[in-house]
Structure formats: structure tokens, C-alpha cells
């Protein structure tokens, strides 16, 4: 007996659906339970980021970048200021660089915690979500202590920072790291080796390496497919070349390389590496150094363009900035890692069951604010 073909059915997931992590509509064509194709419809959160940037000054762009990826605002700031500083040829002092790295890596942990928790939630595991949000709160407390905001920081400025570290920050961070490091094993017990979780994720939604590269997928999703590609190591910006850390890649621990389980586990391992980097950065941070020392009074970059990539928790975050010599950008383009990650879903989810689509979507860890900009 061959495969029985039924009538094709069109099903809409979203735009308002908790598993879409934002406002996203997936038009799924199914044959019975099996998905034949997926067409994503995006743009529900489009806020004209790039058009706005053409009417505000270079400094005023920074709060906009916060709101693109609202789960990893620090790294969004970081990418922009690194690009601008390279364009203006500003050198910032060592203390600023160290603080930036600490913040970016804490942000990476916070972002991965939410991403992993929501992934578990998508496929029915509710408890881990609460555990992960509990620990993420502690990181947000550290950020609140530093700049007063819990989500949208506007903390990194071109040539410096908005505030120096508050008294007691370093001690609190060490305290958090000592508390958090053993907690990672808790997640491992709750999800990574959990039989139900493994059944739902291992061997599901396998993304081969060449597909990932062709679709421009980067970050943890690409590394889960087995390619060691991390901008912090391969094209170091700021002072990442000073620190020692591993780049974890997917090895197919429970199934094949590049499946949903690998994408989950790579993020777990990355949190451990981030802790290592934070510890090194805190230990080697210079005690003195003015965080406003290199703030330029007038920002007028030379005529020309720059494309600068940095590693956000979701992958290569690129800023393409074109300057015409005035104090407002002529054109500013953000290359969003989640945008490319979502575009691959039709390729890797076709042929799987409908319930697997949500597992695949969750494993890609997308943020709609950044896709729609």
C-alpha cells in the first residue's frame, strides 16, 4: 500500500498565538498531519526603524536599537556602538571595554534562558520556564542596578557608557555566577535528558550545514549544525581576543547533527562559556578609567560606509551604515539574525508533523521585534 494522499488543508498559526513568540502568522499547508509547506507572514511589528534612523542623529539611534531585539538590548547597543566607533576611529579605554563585555555576556545568558524556557513551554514543559525566568530575573536585577532599566537599557553610548558600574556590582555579579553555575545542571536534569523532551526534539527538523549557510543562518543555530563559526572568535571585536572560551558545536548527542535537540543543547553549553568570559572580564577589569572619556562632542563620521558584524545571542548582527558627512545617517540597515533564521523554516519543517513545526520554531529562538524592525 502506498502513501494515501488526502485533500490539502490550509491552516493559520497566529498572528496571535503564544508559540509564535510574538506576532507572526504561519500559513501552513498540510496533508493530514504532515506539513507540505509553510509560508511565514511577517511585518506585524514593523516600526519603520530604518526610516526613523534617517531623521535622527547618530546618538539617537541607540534607543531604537534597544527596541529591535528587546530580549537582548545590550548586544544590540553593543553592535551599533562598535560599528560607529570603527567608523569614527574612536578608541575607548579598557574599563569601558571590559564593562561592555560583562554586560553583553550577561545579556547572552538572560536571552538564552528565556529562549530555552519558551522552547520548553512550546512543547508542553511548563516547569523549566519558571525556573529559567527566576534566574533571568537576577540578571535583570543586575542591569537595573547599573542603569535603572530592566529591558531597554540605552546603556552603551558611542565612545563610552551612560553610567559607570555602581558600588557593589562586581560582588553581586560574582554572587550571581556562583549561584547560577550549578543551576545549569538543573536544566540538564529537567529538560536535556528528559525522555519526553528528547522524543519531541531529537532527529526533528534537521538543518544540514550547507542549507544553514545558504540561508544565512548564524549564531547558535548554525553552530548546532556543526560549523564552528563565532564572530567573537573568528572576527574578534572589542576585546574578545583576550579571553579564553570554547565554541560549542552540535554533535548529535541524541539524534543527528543539526536537529532541534542540538540547537537546544548548544545554547546550554554557550551559557557556561559566557560565565567563563564574565569571570575573566571581571577579574581583569581595570579599577580606574572614565567611562565618558572618549565621548565625542559632535558625531560626524567621514563620508563612506561600513558593514560591521557582531555576535548577538541570535547570531550575526550586522549594521550597514552609510554616512554623507552630516550628523544624521544617510542610510542605516540592520541585518537581523532572526530574520534569516525564520526564512529557513519552510525548508526544514516541510515533511514533519504539524506538532513538530512548533518545536522547530521554538528551537530557532526568533524575536519578532528584530525580524520586523
Amino acid at each position, binding site marked *: 500500500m502506498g502513501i494515501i494522499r488526502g485533500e490539502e488543508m490550509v491552516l493559520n498559526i497566529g498572528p496571535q498565538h503564544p508559540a509564535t513568540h510574538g506576532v507572526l502568522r504561519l500559513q501552513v499547508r498540510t496533508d493530514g498531519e504532515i506539513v507540505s509547506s509553510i509560508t511565514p507572514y*511577517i511585518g506585524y511589528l514593523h516600526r519603520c526603524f530604518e526610516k526613523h534612523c534617517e531623521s535622527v542623529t547618530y546618538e539617537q539611534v541607540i534607543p531604537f536599537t534597544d527596541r529591535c531585539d528587546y530580549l537582548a538590548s545590550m548586544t544590540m547597543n553593543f553592535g551599533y556602538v562598535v560599528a560607529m566607533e570603527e567608523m569614527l576611529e574612536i578608541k575607548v579605554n579598557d574599563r569601558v571595554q571590559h564593562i561592555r563585555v560583562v554586560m553583553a555576556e550577561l545579556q547572552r545568558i538572560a536571552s538564552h534562558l528565556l529562549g530555552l524556557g519558551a522552547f520548553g513551554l512550546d512543547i508542553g514543559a511548563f516547569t523549566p520556564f519558571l525556573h529559567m525566568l527566576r534566574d533571568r530575573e537576577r540578571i535583570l536585577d543586575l542591569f537595573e542596578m547599573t542603569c535603572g532599566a530592566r529591558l531597554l537599557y540605552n546603556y552603551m553610548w558611542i565612545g563610552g557608557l551612560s553610567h559607570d558600574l555602581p558600588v557593589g556590582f562586581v560582588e553581586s555579579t560574582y554572587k550571581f555566577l556562583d549561584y547560577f553555575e550549578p543551576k545549569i545542571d538543573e536544566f540538564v536534569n529537567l529538560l536535556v535528558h528528559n525522555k519526553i523532551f528528547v522524543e519531541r526534539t531529537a532527529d526533528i527538523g534537521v538543518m544540514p550545514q550547507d542549507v544553514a*549557510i545558504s540561508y*544565512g543562518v548564524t549564531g547558535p543555530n548554525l553552530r548546532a549544525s556543526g560549523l564552528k563559526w563565532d564572530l567573537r572568535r573568528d572576527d574578534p571585536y572589542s576585546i574578545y581576543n583576550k579571553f579564553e572560551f570554547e565554541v560549542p558545536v552540535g554533535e548529535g548527542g541524541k539524534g543527528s547533527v543539526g536537529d532541534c535537540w542540538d540547537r537546544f543543547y548548544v545554547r546550554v553549553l554557550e551559557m557556561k562559556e559566557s560565565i567563563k568570559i564574565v569571570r575573566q572580564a571581571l577579574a581583569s577589569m581595570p579599577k580606574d578609567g572614565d567611562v565618558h572619556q572618549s565621548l565625542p562632542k559632535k558625531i560626524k563620521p*567621514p563620508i*563612506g560606509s561600513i*558593514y560591521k558584524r557582531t555576535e548577538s545571542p541570535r547570531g550575526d548582527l550586522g549594521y550597514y551604515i*552609510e554616512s554623507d558627512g552630516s550628523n544624521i545617517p544617510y*542610510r542605516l540597515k540592520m541585518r537581523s539574525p532572526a530574520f534569516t533564521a525564520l526564512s529557513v523554516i519552510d525548508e526544514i519543517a516541510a515533511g514533519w508533523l504539524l506538532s513538530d513545526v512548533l518545536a522547530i520554531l521554538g528551537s530557532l529562538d526568533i524575536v519578532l521585534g528584530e525580524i520586523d524592525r
Partner: protein
Amino acid sequence: MSSGLDNKIIELVLSALDGNMDSINALEDRVVRSKAKAALFKAKKDPGKFRAENTGDRSGADEVKETVTSDDSQKLIANFVLKGLDGDMDSINAIEDRVTRSKVKAALVKAKKSPDEYKKIHSPKAVSDVASSSSEVKKIVHEESINLKIKNLSVAKFPGSVLNENVDDFLMINPSIWYDFAIWLKTDSNLLFDSLQCQTGFDIDGKILEARYNLHSMSKKHYTEVRIQVPIENPKIPSVESVWRIADWFERETYDMFGIEFSNHRDLRRILLPEDWEGWPLRKNYEVQETYHGIVIPKMKEGWE
């Protein structure tokens, strides 16, 4: 050189005062053009004065002299600051010129924040390096060697495909062969550009639309930028979505925002905006439509600012 303008701009303004506007309008660099127009506007208020100030001997000797003296004075100040850092304040107080003296003192206050760094930069040996590097034109170079390499390799296969002479920053490609060129960039064993990092559009002065492709090779670890220019009346560029799959969405976004049509794209629809939206928002001459499905689109910010 009282007005502080470039020789080139002055010549252009003088010829425009004589009625020749074409040479200004023909300028390609939009910054220079706008500067020239601004200068012309000022000059028209009192053409006689402008002519008197800017004609005659313009060998540029004054300008050269001026920069040399400013360099010298900087060195002088640095010298005094270095002395001051070593505790020799008397020589600073003995400076006769009031302006220089106050400059030195101000620089000294700054330098005291991080004396070691200042010494490193301004010690007599380093000064000459700094001076020479600051006089160079600031330019962002992505990767010089790889662009030259591509240009040289492409001559045999695609003669005349790279349009720009100076390939320091980017490659300007002829749109008609772009699709074949893209396949070659991806498959040639010397290049292997397997990843399209970023693709975006540009509106240049409302006359030309430009598509830019940032390419990266995961195996060779090199990077280049390709630009393609098309006139705004007929913006058509061959699609490369079958070469790099991500170009599918990138090109849809560029189409959505700039209205560049990518021919042979299998699904060219708007991606971020609704299908029935009018106009191309990131073009410089874009105007928001009046109503959308009966909803009036507010143009003034009143009420929420």
C-alpha cells in the same frame, strides 16, 4: 582663501556666476555639489566681492603654510606639556604668547588624567607618526587584496564586468551579467563566497537605485562587497535567490522598501508592509499615502508629542 573654500568649488562658483550652471549640476559627488550650490547662493548676494576675494593668484601657498604652522604649534604644545608632566612648570609660565600658554595649560590638565598614555603618543618619536597618519584621508577599507583578486580573475571570464577602477572598498558590477557573476563568485575554487551576509538597497539622490551585497566565505574567511546601480525609472536587477537562498527574503525586503524589481525572482511580494501599500518607503522622495482602507494616516505629530 578667506572664505575657506576648496579651489575646485571656487572655480565652479565663479563659472556659475558667469552663467555656466552645467558644470555644478554635472558633479557626481553629492556633498561637493551641495557645498558648491551653497557657496553659489552666498556669492550671488554680492558677486563683486566674491570675485575680488577669490580671483587672482591662487597658488595655494598660503594654505600649505597655514597647515605647517598649526602642525608646528601642536608639536610645541606637546613639548611643553611633556615638560610640565615632568614637573617643569616654569618653562610653561614663561611662554610669552597668552593663547599658546593657555592652550598648553588646558592640554596639561587633560594629560594629567592619563600621563603615561599622553607620553606614549606625544613623545618626540611618536609625534611624527601621528602627524603623518592624521594627514591621510580617512577611509574605511574592507579588504583590499580580495577585491583586486576578484577583479583580476574576472577579466578572463567576464571582461568589463567590474565597472570601478578603484576597488579598495567595493566592486561595482554591470547589472546585465550579475546572475552569472554571482554563480561564479560562489563556485570558483579561489573565491567560494558561500554566504550572503547582507543585502540592501540605496537611493542615491533620487536618480539612481543601488543594491549592495555583502558576501562572505565561510571556508576562505574573506569578505567583499558588491554594488549594482540601476536608473530609478527602470530599476531591474537579476535575482540571485537561487544562488544564495537567503537572497529570497533580502530581495523581497529591498523590493518592498525601494521598489527594485528582481527579475526571475519566483515570489516577489512585499514582505514587511501589506500587499496593498502604495509607494516605496525608503526612497528619499517618498510621501505617505493619504488614507489606508479608509483610515486617515496622520502626518503631523500633534496630539502625541
